[in-house]
């Protein structure tokens, strides 16, 4: 129902799992077994698509590659490839757990090894909470195939029926005789066996899980705490120099001239030069933009040199862009008819004319930055033979490779991409502008270069979560139901096309639940780049819609929980409309009802009238990225208007299995606190075409003293497991604002929350 805005490169996904959740194991995929270098079993997955085969044949040869998913060495160590980037979402731990469970490996003997970008692995990205739904089925089948081969190898060694043998924690046991053989000892023999058909293997009964469902710490956590160089920023390449790249503060501005000679004279500076944008629209694709590159012996020297750099930028029309101007345009557009209709059901004007009670309210939210704590960076080495090697903290290396190949005019197969650990993604690193910058600077420098942005550059050259303005009108029936609902959404675009992550999905709730409904849309022309931020669409839309639904519940004189349960109606499965090329499961009202009832029970929602005066509880729910979440916030307000969040309760339904409770609860708690930080503190403002904020003093993240307890409950339902990186975030923003209304009677209709609006109650 909610914001399934395009996120990640998953176009073309097939919905062939149960309940419409995609599981990407094509009919043509097959497994082969082979002998590993140094002995042991190597299991390789072949995706069976012609495209993957061609690309694999031309795969880059830089660095050591493990062209397989699983390797079992003679010493019993099981190495499982982590094909996706690790951005803190835990997939480098979770995906190997799936393989290891069905392989019946001994987890302490399992090693996760980060893959390079290589088409043999299929899609390699971290986005859209997709790792779980895409890999739940195929990863387990690969593990089960391996176990089947190892058990068969043992049975053949002992010359006993395979049915008399079973496997557990890396050991095969012959039940009648009690004989055992470890996986290491069996690996060579298993390598000579044919790999079974992946669709024929038997998967475990979940009651027998020994790894899935158990609290499993991150595979690299100990190394991080030893200070090992795992992140992109830690990359060291022999002969490397350091680079800074200064782009124009006004988006899309071009370099007219710069005091290059003066900067070149600064200590340690080796070279200073201008790079040109790849094309005038590159700013919206996060491609190469005009800028000045400074190369020095140390990164600190590049920063000292930056202080000396003076650039004359051109002044084009973008300089007229400002937050104040956007607000003025939004107000003007809201008084006119929408430029287009996203959806129109029933007879809205007529229903409004006859409504028992009509409510109107306008909601607004700001641009947001991603502020990954590891600033954008990339190390690149353009070599004499024309090939390029890249070390990048990226969520989405494949489009980065395309960008680099196009900029350098070389074949994609000449670009090798190492995926480092990523110090925070949140959607920013789905874009690869830093990658093409590093590659172009290295080409000019003729040696390996580490490009690192400073914090100001990181905040001022983001692809921002778009701001938005919602103008709601709704009518209640005499029974206190929503009979008619209208949103005139004023958002942003370029030349009549909705900007990235700035759309309103036509299936967004309450569409389909209200007989007369209209979603109209008007666009403000925007020359500021936008892009996906954790839960694109939902991170903004939930605040506006779920706050207004709370207003309607109060106007109807009904409890906000009962109002929602009534609005969703009885438990049933409804089809939803997916954006083109996106898989979309049906919407199950039973699951959203389930999490609403669970969070109400856990938070004591029904007894909240006992709360002290000035303290309130608020409720909201949201469905996105296949996950159903309902959240309750308890909050009060200090005399100066500062909100205090006492506690958050969350109930989530992401299917039948929580794969790794260690990661799952952490994602939900972190997502909720992330959302609270946005609601309380965050806004990117634009003045004279440039972003005002420069660092964490003016763009604030939630801090420890502001972080309330977050109590998380999962509702287990008979559905395939889905991801947790995103769906927990959206409901907390409206739940907080609804709690502040309950506490003070003041309705927050604009983010971030302005304490002045809550003062003196």
């Amino acid at each position, binding site marked *: 129902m909610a914001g399934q805005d395009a996120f990640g490169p998953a176009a073309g996904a097939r919905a062939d799992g149960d309940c419409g959740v995609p599981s990407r194991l094509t009919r043509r995929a097959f497994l082969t077994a082979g002998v590993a270098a140094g002995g042991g079993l190597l299991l390789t997955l072949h995706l069976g698509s012609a495209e993957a085969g061609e690309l694999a044949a031309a795969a880059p040869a830089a660095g050591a590659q493990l062209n397989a998913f699983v390797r079992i060495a003679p010493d019993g160590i099981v190495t499982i490839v982590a094909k996706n980037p690790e951005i*803190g*979402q835990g997939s480098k731990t979770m995906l190997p757990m799936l393989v290891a469970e069905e392989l019946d490996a001994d987890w302490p003997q399992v090693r996760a090894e980060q893959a390079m970008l290589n088409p043999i692995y299929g899609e390699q990205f971290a986005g859209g909470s997709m790792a779980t739904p895409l890999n739940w089925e195929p990863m387990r089948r690969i593990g089960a195939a391996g176990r089947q081969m190892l058990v068969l190898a043992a049975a053949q060694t002992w010359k006993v029926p395979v049915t008399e043998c079973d496997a557990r924690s890396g050991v095969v046991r012959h039940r009648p005789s009690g004989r055992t053989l470890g996986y290491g000892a069996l690996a060579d023999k298993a390598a000579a066996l044919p790999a079974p058909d992946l669709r024929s293997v038997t998967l475990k009964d979940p009651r027998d899980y020994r790894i899935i469902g158990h*609290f499993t*710490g*991150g595979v*690299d*956590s*100990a190394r*991080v*705490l*030893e*200070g*090992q160089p795992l*992140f992109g*920023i*830690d990359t*060291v390449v022999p002969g490397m120099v*350091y680079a800074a790249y200064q782009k124009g503060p006004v988006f899309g501005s071009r370099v007219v001239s710069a005091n290059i000679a003066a900067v070149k004279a600064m200590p340690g500076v080796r070279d200073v030069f201008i790079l040109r944008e790849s094309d005038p629209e590159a700013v919206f694709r996060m491609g190469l933009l005009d800028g000045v590159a400074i190369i020095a012996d*140390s*990164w*600190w020297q590049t*920063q000292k040199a930056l202080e000396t750099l003076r650039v004359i930028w051109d002044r084009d029309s973008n300089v007229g862009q400002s937050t104040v101007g956007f607000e003025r345009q939004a107000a003007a557009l809201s008084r006119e008819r929408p430029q287009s209709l996203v959806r129109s059901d029933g007879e809205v004007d007529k229903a409004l004319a006859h409504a028992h009670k009509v409510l109107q309210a306008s909601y607004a939210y700001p641009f947001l930055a991603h*502020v*990954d*704590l*590891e*600033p954008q960076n990339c190390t690149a080495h353009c070599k004499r033979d024309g090939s390029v090697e890249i070390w990048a903290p990226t969520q989405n290396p494949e489009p980065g490779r395309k960008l680099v190949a196009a900029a350098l005019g070389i074949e994609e197969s000449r670009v090798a991409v190492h995926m480092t650990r*990523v*110090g*925070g*993604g*949140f959607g920013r690193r789905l874009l690869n502008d830093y990658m093409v910058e590093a590659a172009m600077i290295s080409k000019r420098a003729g040696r390996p270069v580490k490009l*690192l942005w*400073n*914090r100001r550059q990181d905040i001022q050259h983001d692809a921002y979560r778009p701001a938005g303005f919602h103008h709601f009108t709704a009518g209640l029936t005499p029974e206190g139901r929503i009979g008619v609902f209208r949103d005139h959404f004023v958002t942003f675009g370029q030349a009549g096309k909705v900007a990235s992550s700035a759309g309103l999905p036509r299936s967004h709730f309450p569409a389909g639940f209200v007989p007369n409904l209209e979603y109209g849309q008007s666009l403000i022309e925007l020359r500021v780049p936008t892009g996906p931020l954790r839960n694109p669409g939902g991170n903004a839309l939930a605040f506006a819609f779920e706050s207004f639904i709370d207003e309607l519940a109060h106007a109807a004189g009904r409890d906000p929980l009962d109002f929602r349960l009534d609005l969703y109606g009885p438990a049933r499965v409804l089809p939803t409309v997916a954006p083109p090329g996106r898989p979309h499961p049906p919407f199950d009202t039973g699951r959203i009802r389930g999490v609403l009832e669970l969070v109400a029970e856990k938070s004591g929602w029904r007894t909240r009238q006992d709360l002290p005066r000035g303290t309130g509880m608020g409720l909201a729910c949201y469905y996105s990225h296949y996950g159903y979440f309902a959240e309750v916030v*308890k909050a009060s307000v200090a005399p100066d208007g500062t909100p205090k969040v*006492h*506690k958050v309760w969350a109930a989530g339904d992401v299917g039948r299995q929580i794969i790794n409770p260690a*990661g799952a609860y*952490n*994602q939900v*708690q*972190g*997502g*909720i*606190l*992330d959302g609270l*930080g946005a609601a309380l503190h965050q806004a990117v403002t634009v003045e004279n075409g440039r972003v005002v904020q420069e*660092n*964490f*003093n003016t763009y604030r*993240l*939630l*801090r*420890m*003293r*502001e*972080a*309330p*307890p977050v109590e998380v409950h999962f509702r287990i339902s008979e559905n395939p497991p889905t991801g947790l990186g995103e769906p927990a975030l959206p409901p907390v923003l409206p739940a907080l604002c609804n709690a502040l209304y309950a506490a003070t009677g003041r309705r927050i209709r604009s983010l971030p929350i302005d304490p002045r609006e809550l003062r003196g109650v």
Partner: protein
Amino acid sequence: MALTITVNGRAREVESAADTPLLWVLRDELDLKGTKFGCGMSFCGACTVHLDGVPTRSCITPVSRVGTAKVVTIEGIGDTEIGGRVKAAWLALDVMQCGYCQSGQVMTATALLTRAPKPTDRDIDTAMSGNLCRCATYTRIRAAIKQAAGLPTDDTREV
């Protein structure tokens, strides 16, 4: 002009210019990559190291100001009794998500427990609020500090 500073118990000769922040000397000259760069202005705490046991923002500390103070970084903190306990608690509770801020968190938490072996929630709030976590793992950071202190890990704040 070369300076000598003591890092994790070893005397290290340093070539960087005197105004270079300690952070970049540690990371790029001494190749100790565990201390992280987040903001360059002391707002985020990712660069926290100890100078004679005091948690210090290395991103705004010129190397010339270190003098004879003993520098301890994430690479060395595990060798101290309290630092070892903090790291063990961090792993047992699986605190980190992306992990980028966590070396700074561990350095600040270790200093807190050295000063206040049984910290209250208020102590934790005061000590830890200078260290940002973009993944917002604050729930687990709080619990891990309590675990390292031998306290119950439940969140006992009045709500």
